[in-house]
C-alpha cells in the first residue's frame, strides 16, 4: 500500500523486515543499539530483536568490519553501520584486502555477504569529515558492490536486496535525503542491484545521476521543461555493477548527456561514466559529454558548501553548452 514516508523510515523498515526474514542477519556498529544510530536508522531494532541481533561495538571501524567478515565466514549476514562517510576509512584495509577479495582468494569457496551502510555525502551543513563522497574508493575495488538510493522506495528495496546479496555491498545513504518524504509502496519490488532506471523521460538530453544528485537533476529537468527543453534523467542506483545497457540506450536516444555527482570530479565515478558512454555511444553523440561535479577540493565548511554542490543552475549551464547550434 502506498504511504508517505522518509528515507530514514524506509531504511529502518528494511532492516526490521530483513531481521524478521532471516535469523542469520545481525546489525551492529557504533551507537546502533539503544540509541538507534545517530541518524536513528536502527531505531527500535535492539528492543524488538534483542541485543544479540542488533548491538553496539567498541569504537573501532576496522574492528567492526573485520569482525563482520569473520561472522560472514561463519554463516551470518552482518549489516554494519559506519557512523559517517569519513569515519569508514579506518575500515578500508578490511574492505579492500578482505571483504572484497575473500571469494576470489578462496577460489569461490567462501563469500562474505556483508552490507556496509554508510551515511554519505553532504548538503546537511555538516562540519569537516562528515560530508565526504567516498564512492570512487569503493567502486574502484573489484569484489565490492556499490549502491546509492535516491528515494524511500528504492532505499527500502535496495537495502533488502543488499542484505540478500551473496557479495559485500557498500550501501551509500545520502544523508541529505534521510528526512525527505515521498510516496512509496514498499510491497512493490524495485529493480535489482545492477540496474539503472529512467526517472524522467525526455528527448533533448540525458542527465545521469545517482544518490544525492538525483533530486537535483530532477529539479533541473523540471526547470528546463519550463524553458522548453526536454531532459531525461537516469538514476544509476547501482554504481557497481554498472548498467551500461540502460545508460547507453538513454544517451543514444537523446544524443547529449550531462553527468551529475557530488564527488570531486577528478578520477571519479563521473569520469568513469563519461569514459564508458563515450566508448560505446560516440557515434550517437552530438556533443562531448559534460560533467557537473563537486570541485577537486576537500569538502567545504558548512557556510560554503553551496558553492561546491552541483546546483540546478550549474546543471542547466552545462546543458546549454551541449552544442545545440549543431542540432
Amino acid at each position, binding site marked *: 500500500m502506498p504511504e508517505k514516508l522518509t528515507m530514514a523510515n524506509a531504511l529502518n523498515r528494511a532492516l526490521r523486515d530483513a531481521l524478521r526474514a532471516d535469523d542469520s542477519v545481525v546489525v551492529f556498529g557504533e551507537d546502533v543499539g539503544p540509541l538507534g544510530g545517530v541518524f536513528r536508522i536502527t531505531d527500535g531494532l535492539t528492543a524488538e530483536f534483542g541485543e544479540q541481533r542488533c548491538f553496539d561495538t567498541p569504537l573501532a571501524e576496522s574492528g567492526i568490519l573485520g569482525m563482520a*567478515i569473520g561472522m560472514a565466514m561463519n554463516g551470518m549476514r552482518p549489516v554494519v553501520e559506519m557512523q559517517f562517510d569519513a569515519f569508514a576509512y579506518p575500515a578500508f584495509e578490511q574492505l579492500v584486502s578482505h571483504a572484497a577479495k575473500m571469494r576470489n582468494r578462496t577460489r569461490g569457496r567462501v563469500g562474505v555477504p556483508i552490507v556496509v551502510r554508510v551515511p554519505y555525502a553532504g548538503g546537511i551543513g555538516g562540519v569537516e569529515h562528515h560530508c565526504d563522497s567516498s564512492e570512487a574508493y569503493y567502486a574502484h575495488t573489484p569484489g565490492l558492490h556499490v549502491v546509492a538510493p535516491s528515494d524511500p522506495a528504492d532505499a527500502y528495496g535496495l537495502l533488502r536486496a543488499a542484505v540478500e546479496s551473496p557479495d559485500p555491498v557498500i550501501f551509500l545513504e545520502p544523508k541529505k535525503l534521510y528526512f525527505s518524504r515521498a510516496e512509496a509502496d514498499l510491497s512493490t519490488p524495485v529493480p535489482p542491484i545492477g540496474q539503472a532506471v529512467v526517472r524522467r523521460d525526455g528527448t533533448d538530453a540525458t542527465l545521469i545521476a545517482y544518490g544525492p544528485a538525483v533530486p537535483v537533476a530532477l529539479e533541473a529537468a523540471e526547470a528546463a521543461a519550463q524553458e522548453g527543453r526536454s531532459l531525461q534523467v537516469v538514476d544509476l542506483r547501482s554504481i557497481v555493477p554498472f548498467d551500461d545497457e540502460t545508460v547507453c540506450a538513454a544517451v543514444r536516444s537523446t544524443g547529449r548527456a550531462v553527468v551529475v555527482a557530488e564527488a570531486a570530479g577528478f578520477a571519479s565515478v563521473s569520469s568513469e561514466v563519461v569514459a564508458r558512454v563515450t566508448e560505446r555511444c560516440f557515434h550517437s553523440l552530438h556533443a562531448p559529454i559534460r560533467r557537473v561535479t563537486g570541485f577537486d577540493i576537500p569538502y567545504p565548511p558548512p557556510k560554503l558548501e553551496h558553492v561546491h554542490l552541483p546546483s540546478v543552475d550549474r546543471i542547466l549551464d552545462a546543458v546549454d553548452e551541449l552544442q545545440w547550434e549543431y542540432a
Partner: protein
Amino acid sequence: MFIWRGNQNPFMTRDAAHLLPSTEPVTLIDPDGHPVPCDGHEMPDPQALVRAYAALITARRFNDQANALVRQGRLAVYPSSHGQEACQVACVQVLGDGDWLFPTYRDTAAIVARGVDPVQALTLLRGDWHSGYDPQATRVAPQATPLATHLLHAVGVAHAARLRGDDTVVMAVCGDGATSEGDFHEALNFAAVFRTPVVFFVQNNEYAISVPLARQTAAPSLAHKGIGYGIPGERVDGNDVAALLDVLGTAVDRARAGEGPQLVEAHTYRVQAHTNADDPSRYRESGEVTPWLARDPITRMETYLRGRGLIGADKIREYGAAADSLAAGMRAGLGDEPVADYRELFAYVYAEPTPQLREQMAVVADELSREEAR
C-alpha cells in the same frame, strides 16, 4: 548470553593480577631435555608428547623440503618456520575438529599439521592461486599476509559460533611484529568485550623481517599486552612443545568453557631468513643465531622421550619415513602446470560475474584463441 545492557559488563574485574603473565616463560622440558617443574602447569600425557614429536619431525621435513623447492625454482617464495616447529605443531594439536585455525604466511607447517594436503597448502607460495584449500572443510582460514587483519576475522568466526550456541574455539596466530598493528589491538579488545572464544597465539621470533623486537614495543613482554584489554596473558617457551601443549591446551579449554579469550606469547627465534629473498647478514650477527640452535625444539623432545623410553630407534625411523613420504608427495605434486584456468580470474570476483567481467573474459578468450591459431 553474554551481551549486557547499560554500563554493566558482568565480566569486568578490577582484580588485575591474574591477567599478568609469569615473569619467566613457562617451560616444562629444558633445552637439554630435562623435565622442569613449573607451578600450575602439568606435563602433558606421554601419548600427547609422542604425537607431538611425530608432528615435529614432519614439520621440520616440510620446512626443509619447501626450502629446497624454492632453491629449485618450484616455489616462488617460502617463509620458513624452521626452529618454530614446536609452535606450529602445538597450536594445532590442542584444537578439536570443529575448531578454527587462522594462520599467517609463516604457518604453512601448522596448516599441514592440521591435516591439509601439503600441495594444496603451498598453492599460495607456489603462485597458483591465493589459497588452495577449502577453509570451511578444513576449518583453516586462508593464510593472511596483511599483518594482524585476520585476527579480527577470528573474533568474528568465534562470535558467530557463540551467537549460535556452538562451542567452537578459534586459534588466531600472528608474529611479534604484527602486535604493533592496530588490528591486533582491535581484535583483542573486541574479543574481550564480547568474550569470544579466541586464543591469540603470538610467535615471538624476535624479528619482523629486519626489525628486532625492541623496535616494536617497550612493553615488558608481548603477553603483557593482554592486561590492557582485560585478557589474561601467558608467556611460554616457544621451543618446548610440552609447555606449549599445556599452556595452549588450557587456553583452549578456558575459551570453550566460556571464560573468554587469552593471549599466549611463545618466545622463540627465527633461525632462518625472513624468506629466501631476505639477507639477515645486513641486520644481525650470525653469533646471535648460534645459541638458538642449541635450543632446537626437536632435539630436546627426542632426548626427553628417549630418556623415558617413550620412543626408541624404531619409532624414530617410522616417523622419519612418514616425513619422507610427505616430502616425496610434495616433490611429485608441485609440477609446472598452473592449477587454475584464466577464466577463474573472472569467476570468483562476485557470486555472478558482472556483464563487464564477462566482456573482459571474452577479450582474453579471443586473445588466446588467436595465439593458438598462430
